């Protein structure tokens, strides 16, 4: 067995168990070769040290609670983001319905004007919100 093959096999043996035949050949090479013996020794020491040192830390006991808190905050933020749109749409629908009930105007006109006003006021409201956000960003 060549030294390069032996050293590859040494590294391989640290990743997974090698078969009995490979192991025997490797051991006999290591017994005869000083360089590979020292390589094996260094790798063995290193492997033991890494295994002893690389111990997975545990998440703290508050991890779940903090995450649940962050997610609740995120849900609230998402709702707050949508809330003006929902209120606006709801207001538009209610106003249109009231006009439909109380105004002596043809229903088609009421619906058309209602939709148009809701849309236009939505655009204005959105522009106003962007303007406010820009002001906050300055």
């Amino acid at each position: 067995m060549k030294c390069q093959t032996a050293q590859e096999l040494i590294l391989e043996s640290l990743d997974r168990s090698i078969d009995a035949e490979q192991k025997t050949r490797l051991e006999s090479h290591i017994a005869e070769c000083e360089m590979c013996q020292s390589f094996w020794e260094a790798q063995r020491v290193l492997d033991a040290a890494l295994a002893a040192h690389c111990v997975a830390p545990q998440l703290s006991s508050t991890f779940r609670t903090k995450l649940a808190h962050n997610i609740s905050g995120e849900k609230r933020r998402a709702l707050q983001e949508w809330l003006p749109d929902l209120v606006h749409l709801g207001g538009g629908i209610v106003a249109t319905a009231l006009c439909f009930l109380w105004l002596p105007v043809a229903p088609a006109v009421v619906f058309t004007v209602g939709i148009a006003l809701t849309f236009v006021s939505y655009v204005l409201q959105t522009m106003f919100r962007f303007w406010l956000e820009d002001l906050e960003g300055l």
Partner: protein
Amino acid sequence: MDQDIRQLLSQRQKDRAFEVLLQRYQAKVFRLVFSMLGNSSRAEEVTQDAFLKIWQALQSYDRRASLSTWIYTIARNTGISHLRAESYRKTLSLEEAHEPFAEAEPVLNRLEIERLLARLPDEQREVIVLFYLQERSIEDVATMLDLPEGTVKSHLHRARKAMAAMMEVRR
């Protein structure tokens, strides 16, 4: 694998799906992030961020990649963003930046191992640390880092050789 989570998602039970996902992946994601940052409290913060992003994006998960790959990608990207934002490896001392491992070993002590690890290229360090954190599973490391198993082995072998060479020079 993860069929139950996919099923819950298709039933629009996002919170329940997230609960199962969290139970299954929180430790692995934490270890993955820890292998990148080398500091448990920072790794926990980044794990928080990663799971928050996962929660935000869960409903839009398109199932093209496996769920585990998708989760690990988000976790890795969050870790990378954190490293870039803080670039704390450059500003903090070695001892402050890395506190990962258990008490000193007689042959190679904690600090020596930390020094050897710190001198490895990032990808080799992540692979070798994760290999031991994941109880020597090359398959797990490959999945978590989205690398072929052959590449993981190659990084491992290079890291081992480099560390042994550094030990030799030190003597």
